[in-house]
């Protein structure tokens, strides 16, 4: 389940007023989330939740729901 904080972090980074993000939404469906801006979105999420991803962990995420799960796992490990 996508949390409000997670969604807001992504939308803020991409300068989006609103966009519906669900578990199965993929990065390429989100306006502005292209290859050039991908790294900034990931860094923004890391900063907002004070977590740190390994590149390969992000690469394995098939959709935004999986990225949210990765954040949750990292928070649980704290």
């Amino acid at each position, binding site marked *: 389940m996508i949390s409000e904080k997670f969604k807001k972090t992504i939308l803020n980074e991409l*300068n*989006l*007023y*609103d*966009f519906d993000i669900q578990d199965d939404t*993929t990065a*390429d*469906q989100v*306006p*502005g989330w*292209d*290859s*050039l*801006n*991908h*790294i*900034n979105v990931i*860094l923004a999420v890391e900063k907002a939740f004070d977590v*740190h991803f*390994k*590149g*390969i962990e*992000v*690469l394995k995420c098939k959709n935004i729901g999986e990225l949210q799960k990765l954040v949750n796992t990292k928070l649980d490990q704290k």
Partner: protein
Amino acid sequence: MIKTMSKKRELEWDRWVENAEKFPDKEAIIHWVAGEEPFRWTFSSILKAAESFAVGLKKNGVERGDVCAIIIRHNKYFYPIYLGISSIGAIPSVLAYPNPRLHPEKFTQGLEGMSNRSGLDWILTEKVIAEVIEPIILKEKSTIRGMFFPLEWGKNLKFEGKDLENIEQIRANIKDIDPVLLQHSSGTTGLQKPVLLSHKAVLDHVTNYGNAIKLNSEDRIISWLPLYHDMGLIAAFHLPLTFGIPVVQIDTFEWVMIPSLLLEAISKEKGTLTWLPNFAYNILAGKVHDDELEGISLDSMRMFINCSEPVRDKSHKMFYKRFKEYGVKPESLSACYAMAETTFAVTQTPTDKEAKVLYVQKQSIAKGVIELNGDDENSRTCVSSGKAIDGCEVRIVDEKGNDLPENYVGEITISSVSLFDGYRNYPEKTNAVLKDGWYYSGDYGFCLDGEYYIIGRKKDIIIVAGNNVYPEDVEDLVSHVEGVIPGRVVAFGEDDEDLGSEQISVIAETKILDETTQKKLKLEIIKAGMTEDINIKKVYLVPSRWLIKSSAGKPSRKANRERLVVKNETITWS
């Protein structure tokens, strides 16, 4: 040092065979995949695989001179497929695999446009996108005769003596002036300009460029560049294959997700050369975590070559500051000026010196005569792209085509032994840029002490991370968005200091006054860009009649950009 080009008829294929005989077990291409052991092609194994694919292509009807578009993702068989096409005298043309953002209809429209222009005969692709491509082939006037899935051929391919004889016979009749590849100048898919290059042009070019960078047998190239781009295809594919030098090929998509992959590959494979667009220096310097650098050593690197978008001194400085403790040397930070029309490189900075930096008085640039200054707010920092490489001549000319002396700003024109003959099936575009054997690049620059500095563009092309985007294409897209006044849109590149590149901004006139509806309109404009894989970073909405027109009667990109970006003008809605 590499050997000088011989005068005898020589094909790219001859060089690949020679390398397979000389260094059968030497690594040729190291296919890198994140989190996996890399796959290692040797010079003999890749050739053997290429011959098998050549047999498969022949059996499917591919003939000498046919253009074979390759639309395949990062795959270890990509390379022998490419070589296999070339080995039977057909012409490989690498096209970008469709990004999921790109609407399938837009992809097919683009491919159809490209097919009609470039005269594609065959599509070699993956089964997963067959359904999208098939309708184009079935169209009555389509140039495309068929589609294959060579990745599926696998073990079914057997290489037999008779097939070899046939292929050798074909090869014996190929001339060095025959085409070896078709590459596309960058731009929106479908509108890209096809550049056909001969064996001779490519061999001469890699020889001359190899000399400029003092290519030697100890070199190892590391690259994440896409092979549909001239920098990836020529510098990181044809160059090493021709000279028997290993190259590590990283997936572009994976590099974007994990930029540290490049550093890991350099460290593990003892890389010596890499080509990077400017934004990559910013990403590597600013966006990689320290823990991803544990155990990384970059001291094997001879040259990081900055190319394909304006070179920024700040990016070099950031990169050096971050990685000097990992072994990066200042003299390894070099630059190159290149384009598909000249095969690849035109100029290159020296191998043993950092790219020269000048501080030029801003006002003097506007006047067209360079005056040097100190490093202060009145200066613009210009990074040298080096001297012309062997086989290339560069002139700086005024608007009438007259030569300008050193220090004068003008258009960069190039003559080269590896210059293209013209865009394939595009005489009007060819006539606009090719005059008396000189290519008019559309780039502005100046020469000082024999070194060339690129400072701007004649046309308003936006360069986003090394890719050219034409503002007209963006404006056309946005004009069709409901709520935008048709034709009342300008698109331009806005500097992104953080990324070390430009991003696309749009100013669009609308009659919508309500703030919430305006926000929705902005989103719709960004979404319209997405359908063509164009990322619009910023949208400025302005009221009707806000945009200033140029003397040609169209909204002026420069003047309107200046109002919002430079002067920060407030938009008043009444």
